[in-house]
């Protein structure tokens, strides 16, 4: 289209006029509602237990991933688990910030081992750590197991090992832990949920 002097003035006049009309309070644009996205709508929800105190509140951890091989899952949100009878969806300020706790750069993710006399901690694998713990438990128990006390009564106990478990274990894991402890003959058993 060729822009003549006349059409230029026409277009200019129309634009100036509509700007003035808008200035008086008539909006030619229709008001549209915005669509709101939810940041956890595509996230995978996993139930877990808050590790902080002995109340052991249930939490839901939302992780963004579709399981693709080339993508590392990322925790985007943590909130209370409404189905958990302990907290029924609520969380305290510490529990509410679990996302930052999980994503903290200096969070310990692998077992550390410091041999006797050494100054430095060194990273070891879980297999190595568990094997070593099992071996030491066996050795200590073998060495110090008390089958009968001074009166000759059958006691079957191991007094030289104490076992403390964290608050993240629930009812079922707690049951297994007690069974295991009794089988080893441990007397000093404690859980953080009681401390």
């Amino acid at each position, binding site marked *: 289209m060729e822009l003549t002097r006349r059409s230029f003035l026409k277009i200019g006049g129309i634009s100036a006029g509509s700007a*003035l009309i808008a*200035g*008086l*309070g*008539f*909006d030619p*644009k*229709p*008001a*549209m*509602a*915005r669509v*709101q*996205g*939810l*940041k956890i*709508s595509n996230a995978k929800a996993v139930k877990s237990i808050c590790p902080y105190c002995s109340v052991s509140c249930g939490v839901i951890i939302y992780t963004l991933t579709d399981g693709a091989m080339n993508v590392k899952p990322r925790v985007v*949100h*943590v*909130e*209370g688990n409404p189905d958990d009878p302990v*907290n029924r*969806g*609520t*969380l*305290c*300020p*510490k*529990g*509410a*910030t679990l*996302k*930052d706790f999980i994503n903290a750069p200096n969070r310990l993710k692998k077992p550390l081992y410091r041999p006797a006399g050494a100054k430095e901690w060194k990273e070891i694998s879980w297999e190595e750590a568990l094997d070593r713990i099992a071996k030491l438990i066996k050795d200590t128990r073998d060495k110090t197991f008390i089958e009968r006390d001074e009166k000759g009564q059958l006691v079957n106990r191991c007094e030289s090992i104490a076992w403390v478990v964290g608050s993240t274990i629930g009812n079922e894991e707690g049951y297994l832990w007690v069974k295991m402890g009794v089988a080893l003959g441990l007397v000093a058993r404690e859980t953080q949920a009681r401390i």
Partner: protein
Amino acid sequence: MATVTTEGTVGLGLRRVSASKAPDQNIKKSDQLAILVDISSCIGCKACEAACAQWHDLKPPLHTEEKLFTGYQSGPGLAPNLFMYMRFQEVEMDKGLVWAITKYQCMHCADPGCLKACPSPGAIIQYTNGIVDFDHSKCIGCKFCLSGCPFDVPRYDANNKPWKCNFCVDRVSNGLEPMCVKTCPTNALHFGTKEEMLIRANKLLEGLKKRGFDKAAVYDPPGVGGTGYIYLLPHGDKPEIYGLPKEASISPLVSLWKGPVKLIGSIVLWGTLLGAFLQLILFGPIKVGKKEKKEG
């Protein structure tokens, strides 16, 4: 627990848009939503503050020791990266020391002063369920919303864009409760329709009065048409101790400026243009050529 209908939660319409004509309200039905803050059962644990920052992915300002201030608060107040905070104040009252705790954030007024003051079309919107939200893509960074706010809420980032509580509109419009309400461990926060929340507030108020808080009151300031956050205050005769203005209202300058002043401005603008046009038609353009020659 309060029941929330889908009306007002899923599929949001708009009630008011800044500097624009109000959209048609007869299309979709919607409930007014509200949060009731029961100060009498709040223990000041700040779980709502933490959960808010987590949901909105905020990094609230850290306060170094030099900037330390008195009190139990986690900061001096709201910040562009802190949409809500717990406010603590110790006050000497007749019956002894009172520890006034408040959850402080945008109140989501039914008649929002920020929206009225905003000159940019669509930068501040109010959904049909009462939630007031900012649209940063349309914001021009003029900071007028703070001058229109009776509660001193919006805070500006480095680009002069305002930030505030958005009532977790993303959660609410997807059928979830706001994050602060979900996390509250003492059931001090209740979420539902405004009607339900007022009924619940008055029920709790009766209980408080029986316990000896005879001056307890429900805070729902009529000066801004009621708010989306209703407070149950044990010392309701003095809302100032909770940091809430006794009579919240929009500054009269805002309505003056948006009403008569705007109209007069438009008339002057139109008049000037019309006058110039008439001058051109009746007398023709002013010839300045002769004068210039004389001066030269």
